[in-house]
C-alpha cells in the first residue's frame, strides 16, 4: 500500500484494516506519533490527514492511503515551526509523550483559525496530557498564532 507521508511517497506491507498509527510506527519507523489508548480517546496519536487533525489509531490504512499525511516528523524540518518555537519558549513539555499529538492538533487548529480565542482552543484541544501542561499549551498556541500572523 502507498502512503504520502510528510511529502514523501512511502510503501508498506500493511493490511487494509491496520490502523495508520501502527503503519507509521511499526512499518515506516516514524515513532514520533504515540500510542496512548487505541480508541481515539487520548489524542497521543494525532496526525494531519488532508490538513485535518485525525487520531491515527482509529483510521485504517485503507482510509489513509492516497491521502496527504503529516506527522510530527514533518513539522519544522530544517527550521523549527513557530508552534515548536512557542512550545520551547513557553517550556510546554514535561514527560513529552503527548506533545507530538498536541502539536499536530494545534497545527490543525491554526490552519483553520489564525487567531483562536480561549474557548476555541478549549474546543479544539481535547488531547489528554497526564503531566498537566495545559496552561502552557494554551499560552504557546496564542504565541504561535501571533508569530504566524506577524510573518504572514
Amino acid at each position: 500500500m502507498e502512503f504520502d507521508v510528510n511529502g514523501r511517497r512511502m510503501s508498506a506491507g500493511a493490511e487494509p484494516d491496520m490502523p495508520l498509527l501502527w503503519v507509521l510506527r511499526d512499518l515506516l519507523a516514524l515513532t514520533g506519533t504515540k500510542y496512548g489508548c487505541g480508541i481515539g480517546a487520548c489524542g497521543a496519536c494525532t496526525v494531519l490527514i488532508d490538513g485535518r487533525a485525525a487520531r491515527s489509531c482509529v483510521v485504517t490504512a485503507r482510509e489513509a492511503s492516497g491521502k496527504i499525511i503529516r506527522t510530527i516528523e514533518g513539522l519544522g524540518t530544517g527550521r523549527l515551526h513557530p508552534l515548536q518555537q512557542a512550545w520551547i519558549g513557553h517550556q510546554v513539555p514535561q514527560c513529552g509523550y503527548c506533545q507530538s499529538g498536541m502539536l499536530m492538533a494545534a497545527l490543525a487548529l491554526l490552519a483553520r483559525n489564525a487567531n483562536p480565542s480561549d474557548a476555541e482552543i478549549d474546543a479544539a484541544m481535547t488531547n489528554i496530557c497526564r503531566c498537566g501542561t495545559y496552561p502552557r499549551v494554551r499560552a504557546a498556541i496564542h504565541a504561535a498564532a501571533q508569530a504566524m500572523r506577524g510573518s504572514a
Partner: protein
Amino acid sequence: MRRRGFLLGALGVGGALVVGWGVLPPRSRLGAHDTLPPLYGAVSLNGWVRIAPDGSVVVAVPRSEMGQGVYTALPMLVAEEMGVTLAQLRVEQAPIDAIYGNVALLVTGLPFHPDQENGELARASEWIVAKLARELDLQVTGGSTSVRDAWRPMREAGAAARAMLIAAAAQRWHAAPAQCSVADGVVRHLDGRKLALRELIGTLREVPLPGALRLKPAQEFTLIGKPAPRLDVPDKVTGRAQFGIDVRLPGMLYAALRACPTIGGMLRYVDPAPALALPGVVRVSTLAGAAGGAPAVAVVADGWWRAQRALQALHIEWDAGPNAEMSSDWLLARLRGALDAEDGFTFYRRGDGEAALVRAARRVEAEYRAPYLAHAALEPINCTARLANGRLSIWAPTQVPSIVRHVAARTAGIDADRVDVNVTLLGGGFGRRLEVDFVPQAVWLARDVAPAPVQLLWSREEDTTHDFYRPAAIARMKGGLDANGAPLAWVSKSASDAIVPQYLRRAYPALAADTPDKTTIEGLFDQPYEFPHRHFAHVTHRSPVPIGFWRSVGHSHNAFFCECFIDEMAYAARRDPLDFRRRLLARHARHRAVLELAAAKAQWGRVGPGRAHGIALHECFGSIVAQVAEVSLAQGEIRVHRVVCALDCGTAVNPEIVAQQMESAIVFGLTAALYGEITINAGRVEQQSFPQYPMLTLAGTPRIDTHLVPSDAPPGGVGEVATPPIAPAVANALFRLTGRRLRSLPLRLAA
C-alpha cells in the same frame, strides 16, 4: 507494637539486614575515574562527570526523566560548581553503582513525627538507613527526592571537576593553581591565556582526584535559583525523544498480552491455534505472575498490532480464583469493620485526646473516604528485552533500574552483572514505574524467542486494569474546641492497606515484613497544627487489591482528610478558615508565611458573585505548599477557575521547573478530585480506559499562579507537593459556596 520492632520495620528494608551488615565503612559518593564505563576519547573526572572529545560536559544522571525535569535540574548542580554553561551539558544515564543510591528516599521514609526528628532514636536510624541506601544500590526515582539527594554529591562532583580542570591547566601552563580559574566553560589564566575543555582531555587523565572541596555559598550561585530552559525540551517538540515504546532493535519482535482479569485468578486453558493461524504471529506464550504481575497470555508477532489482533482471536479460560465475589462495597464494608474493631497503631500522641474531647465545649466528628486510583501514565506499560550470548539486555521506562536488574537476573537465573538495564525516557511515571511486574514478563518472552529482542507493550485496557492502585482509605476524626472556640483536641483513626509491605513482597520477598508503614498516615499525623491534645492512629487492613505508590502517596488522600477537617473545625469555632489556621500555626512561621502568601496573592475571600474561595495548607516531602482555589458551579458541575499556589521548597534550583511541577501536580490532583475512582466488581477492575477513567483536559484546567517564598535553605521536594492540597482547597470552596461538606472523593454534588 513494641518500639524496637517498630523501628526495625520502619527501616523499610528489614531488621535482619541492619544486623547482618554490621559496621559499614563510611563511603564517599564522588566515585572515581573508573566508575563510569569507558568511552573512547573521553575522560571521566569522577562518577558523575566526563568530558567528551568535543569538549561537552557529560553528566551521569542516576534518576529517571519522567517529566519532572531531573535531566535539567541535576546537571545544573554540576554545572554550577564546575563553572560550565548549560549549553555545554549533555546527559547520560548513570550505570548502577552504590554511589548513586538514593539516600534521601529512605531517610525521609522513616516514620517520625517532626517533633521527634532530632531525637536519638531518629538520628540513629537515619544513620543506619543512609548507610543501607548506599550499600543496596537503591537507584530509585521517587518520593520527590532527586534534587534533595543530589544536592550535595552532584555539587561536590562539579567542584571536584573544577579543581581537576584547574590542576590540569596549571600543569600545562606551569602555573600555580591560584592563577587559574574556570568560568563559562573555559579555563583561564590571570594573564589572559585560555584553554577549552577538549584541549585538556589528555592532561586530565593524569590528574588525581582532589582532596578537600569547597562548595560555593548561595550568594555566588550563577545558575542555581534562576529559571533555565530544560535540556530535554527540543527533542520533545520534534518527535525525536525516545520513550520505552520507541526502542527499535534489529530483528525485534513485538508482544501483546492479556492478563487474568480477576484479581488473584489463574490461567486455566488457552488453545494457541487461532492466534498462530494469523499472519505475522511467531508464538503464543503463557506467563506466570511474578513481582506482583498477574498470570497472562502473550502473543509475539512481527508487529504490535498483529500481536494484539491475534490475542483477541484467542479464547482464554480463566480460573477466577478466590476473589470472584469481591466488590468495592464489600471492600469498604471490611475496611469500616476493621476501623470499628481495631485500635490501630499509634503514630503520634500528645496529651490525652479522648479525655479532652469529653470536656470539650464543642465537638466535631466526621468520616472521610478516598477511593482506589490508577496512575494512567500516558505511555502504557512496556519493556524490551533481549537474551543473547549469555547477556540479558533490558530497555525500560523505569523509576528503579537497580531493582529491574535484580528482578531480571532472578527471573533469568543469571548473575546481575550479566544484565544491562537501559533506562529510556518515561512517558509518565507517577509511581507506577516503581513497579517491576512487567520485567519478568519481558524476560520470559525474550527467553522464548531468543536471541531475538522482543518489545512487550500492554494495551491501555491492560494498563488500567492491572495497575497498583492508590489504596482506598477511610478516616474518622474527632475534634474538640473549648468554650472560647480555641482548639483543644484532635483524635484521628484511619484505615487502609499498607503499600510498603506489599511492595517489599513483590520486589524483595526476603525482606518483606508487616510493620507500621509511614505512607499510611503521612500527611495526617505529621502536620504542624498545634492542638494541646492529639492522637493519630492507623489500622492497616490487608485486601487482595494490588496497591502502590501514587504521586504524593499517603499525602494524596490524607491531606484531603486533614485539611477538610481543619476547615470543619474552623466553621465550628465560627472563625474564618484562614484565620483559624493562622492561629494554629502561631509557632510555625514558615508555614504561616506560605499560607499568608497564597491568601494575599489570591486576595482571599474577594470573589465575584456565584464563586467562592477555599484554602488548604500542606507540608510534605520537605516542602510547604498552600493553595487557594476559586470555584463555581455551572449547571451542577464543579468549575475551578483559578488556583493560587504558594510554595516554600527551600532553594528552587530551577524556578521554571518548579512552576511547571506546581501546575502539573495541581492538574493531577484536580483530575483525581473531580473524576478519579477505580471500582471493583466480581473481582475485576471495572474501568478499562479513559472514557471510564476520565482525565481533566485543557477546557477544564484553571488558571494557575505559582508564588515562591524566597529561601536559601537546602532544597525540598517539588514533584509531588502540589497534588495533596488541591482536593481539600476545592472541597472547602464548595462548602463555602453551597453549605455542603463533601467528605468523599471524587467530589460529587449529586447523590
